[in-house]
């Protein structure tokens, strides 16, 4: 693309690309986010291209590969415009049939439709799928409209208009005021108001000033930042350029995990294309403002998502945090004023600038504005990325959008905020989710991970799992984190192995308080959260493990035995066939039995028994 030299020129380029996209022309859209690619979607894409070419339809039918749509549970996904017919779990060989029947003749292929588990009804159009219907896909919605590799696509939906508006019509201070007024809070975990951070960085002494996009998303199960960077890289880039202009920075960095190859590929391409088009680099849109971005790939340490550790890593040193008594806005990267926001925060910026702070602040709650993308995983029917206004009830997210718990199991808890977040019990399901409410009940927003747990999850085991994650991700610099968390993990392990002692819970609580007070960075000081929140809401489970040597959820192997319910067993022999150690045995049509000596408690018999005859106690 040739260089765009002014905002007016940008507008005409946008118009040209918009005009090139006939809304009535059939368009096959297919998600090629990392999740769908893992289903083998690339083969389906190749098949579509081949089938279109075979039929000489390449000119008559648009075909677009896009980033993640969020409904990862049902991939591969194909949406056919203009009617937005929605096909899910599409077979890799279904391309020809979809073209012939649906695109050319308007026929619906029944077997590819989504079935609403609540009603049993088949849903034809994307907008009617309950998973999408109850979301507000402000930031994430563009993902399904653009090919992440195409700047033309982004321009066709009005992309970079906010940048044009900011550079030509707004003073830097005005932009900052707008972001402050919108009360955009950092989506990476801290929830600090972005506008105030920008303001401090702008006012800080020292040059150069740096602008950083934190794409070191590392919470287990969270992938909203990856999907944004993969699916709509120009949106993130546009936010960064606006921020850099407001702050007075000419150099930006994107710190992305190396485990995100597609995100890195797409943002690299986006940067190149934006540079080519005069949207990045020297004299952006002829405004006199220059700014460029470099990508830095992280080496795989969770702690490098912490800003000061991220700076250390960017500088080429080991990723260890430092005390933040002097703020990064004064002395950050290379001891220069630095403004760091995460991917999702930057992606919100163009909307605020384009539509105004008042409009933005009309979404959400008193203290938390706008929407938030959550990654909904665990014991949930609709695994995927969900974007809702701040303040949406947990119940709506889990049951209306997430479709509830598989297998009719009972909800037990939802873990929010990543490994150092907290487990929220059922009694808070009607709480509106925002930064402040989550903190009040001992959890946190974090970057927006949500892990759903059901009655089969042992909460002590859950606490052990997250604590163990943090043990292996501690950088090891300070004593409370390096030594304290592993001792907590050891005590938790003892409890799950039936070696818990009286006073362990109180000791864990005491250690937690001291670690919160004593640790150097947020990783350490929030590490006790999973333990504290599970003790707070599921203390009875701890007591059962310690005093009665019993795991109520039937998870902790040292505390459970498998046996057969004689009344329910039909002697079908299935358990004896799946048992890997020969512990389950019996004659056909006779009640089976399990030899506790041979039993390794793998659970295969319980899973395979159709009569619910395996007892775990």
């Amino acid at each position, binding site marked *: 693309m040739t260089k765009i030299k002014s905002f007016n020129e940008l507008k005409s380029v946008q118009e040209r690309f918009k005009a090139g996209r006939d809304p009535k022309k059939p368009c096959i859209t297919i998600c090629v986010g990392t999740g769908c690619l893992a289903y083998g979607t690339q083969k389906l894409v190749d098949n579509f291209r081949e089938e279109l070419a075979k039929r000489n339809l390449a000119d008559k039918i648009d075909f677009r590969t896009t980033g993640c749509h969020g409904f990862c549970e049902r991939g591969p996904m194909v949406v056919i415009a203009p009617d937005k017919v929605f096909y899910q779990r599409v077979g890799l060989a279904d391309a020809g049939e979809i073209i012939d029947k649906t695109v050319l003749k308007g026929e619906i292929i029944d077997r590819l439709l989504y079935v609403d588990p609540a009603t049993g009804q088949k849903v034809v159009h994307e907008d009617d799928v309950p998973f999408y219907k109850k979301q507000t896909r402000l930031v994430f919605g563009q993902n399904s409209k653009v090919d992440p590799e195409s700047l033309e696509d982004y321009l066709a939906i009005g992309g970079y208009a906010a940048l044009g508006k900011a550079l030509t019509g707004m003073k830097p201070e005005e932009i900052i005021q707008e972001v402050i007024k919108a009360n955009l809070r950092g989506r990476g975990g801290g929830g600090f108001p972005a506008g105030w951070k920008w303001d401090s960085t702008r006012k800080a002494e020292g040059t150069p000033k740096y602008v950083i996009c934190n794409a070191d998303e590392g919470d287990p199960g969270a992938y909203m930042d990856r999907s944004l960077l993969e699916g709509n890289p120009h949106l993130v880039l546009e936010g960064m350029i606006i921020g850099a202009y407001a702050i007075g920075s000419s150099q930006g960095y994107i710190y992305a995990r190396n485990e995100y190859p597609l995100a890195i590929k797409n943002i690299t391409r986006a940067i190149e294309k934006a540079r080519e088009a005069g949207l990045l680099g020297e004299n952006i849109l002829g405004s006199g403002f220059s700014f460029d971005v470099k990508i830095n790939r992280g080496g795989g*340490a969770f702690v490098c998502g912490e800003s000061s550790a991220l700076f250390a890593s960017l500088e080429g040193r*080991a990723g260890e945090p*430092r*005390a933040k*008594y002097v703020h990064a806005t004064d002395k950050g990267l290379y001891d220069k004023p630095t403004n760091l926001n995460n991917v999702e925060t930057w992606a919100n910026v163009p909307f605020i600038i384009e539509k105004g702070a008042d409009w933005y602040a009309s979404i959400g709650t008193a203290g938390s504005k706008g929407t938030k993308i959550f990654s909904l995983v665990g014991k949930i029917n609709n695994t995927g990325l969900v974007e809702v206004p701040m303040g949406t009830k947990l119940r709506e997210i889990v049951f209306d959008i997430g479709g509830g718990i598989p297998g009719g199991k009972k909800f037990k808890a939802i873990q929010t905020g990543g490994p150092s977040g907290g487990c929220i019990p059922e009694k808070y399901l009607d709480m509106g989710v925002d930064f402040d409410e989550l903190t009040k009940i001992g959890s946190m927003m974090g970057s927006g991970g949500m892990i759903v747990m059901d009655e089969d999850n042992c909460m002590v085991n859950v606490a052990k799992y997250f604590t163990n994650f943090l*043990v*292996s*991700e*501690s*950088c*090891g*610099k*300070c*004593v*409370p984190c*390096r*030594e*304290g968390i*592993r*001792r907590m993990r*050891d*005590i938790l392990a003892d409890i799950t192995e039936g070696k818990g*002692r009286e*006073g*362990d819970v109180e*000791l864990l609580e*005491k*250690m937690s*308080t*001291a*670690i919160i*007070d*004593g*640790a*150097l960075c947020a990783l350490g000081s929030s590490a006790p959260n999973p333990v504290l929140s599970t003790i707070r809401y599921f203390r009875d489970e701890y007591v059962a493990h310690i005093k009665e040597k019993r795991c109520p959820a039937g998870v902790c192997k040292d505390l459970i035995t498998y046996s057969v319910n004689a009344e329910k067993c039909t002697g079908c022999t299935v358990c004896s066939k799946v048992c890997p150690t020969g512990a389950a045995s019996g004659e056909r049509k006779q009640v089976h039995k399990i030899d506790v000596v041979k039993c390794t408690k793998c659970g295969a018999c319980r899973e395979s028994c159709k009569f619910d005859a395996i007892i775990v106690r």
Partner: protein
Amino acid sequence: MVNLTIDNKKIEAEAGQTILEVARENGIVIPTLCAHESLDATGSCRLCVVEVKHGKRTRIVTSCLYQVAEGLTVDTKSERVLAARRLVLQLLLARCPESEQLQEVAKEMGVEPEPRFTPDKDNVKCILCRMCVRTCEKIVGVSAIGFSYRGTEKNVCTPFKEDSLTCIGCGACAYVCPTGHIEMETTETGDARTIWGRTFKMKTCKVCGRYFAPEDQLAYISSKTGVPADNLAVCISCR
């Protein structure tokens, strides 16, 4: 100058000083394990935590890094502070049960080992205070040692645990080590010393004839300072 109070004592201090510096100047004892006057503070041992009140906000900070400010109220012995310090020390005692220095600090502070923590059995006395690594990098200037691994696996060593070619055998790391973890062995005659797995040849003093410094160290000092090697061939006692 700024005015603050530490443990109810009114103190005037220079802006830019840390709480630890000001406290020590005024005879207030704050325990530390990783602070050294010749090194920049790192804030890793967390023993020097204190409770500060500035405006309405009360929080726990590391006194070796936190700078004094006008109107600051510091409590070096609050319940929260003592609880954090107690845990830090108990954790270190469990990590290095054989360290006499730690046992002494614990005795001074009245801290008993936590019986629930099983003492580590790897006979390591390193508390990862980082003094050796910082000394080697900032004072000596060779960076022969650093950290490998992360978290609980973290340890001090030469790169890839191979013999370091940059080490000059000066022994500053062993000298500064507070727990005696870093060992340096010298032969009976004093003609060689071994540290970090490498043996260094010692040089004799031109005057008294005694072994006084590793040859590599003298060569390093000569190259760094421009002083001819010959001028460095006399030991301190004879100079």
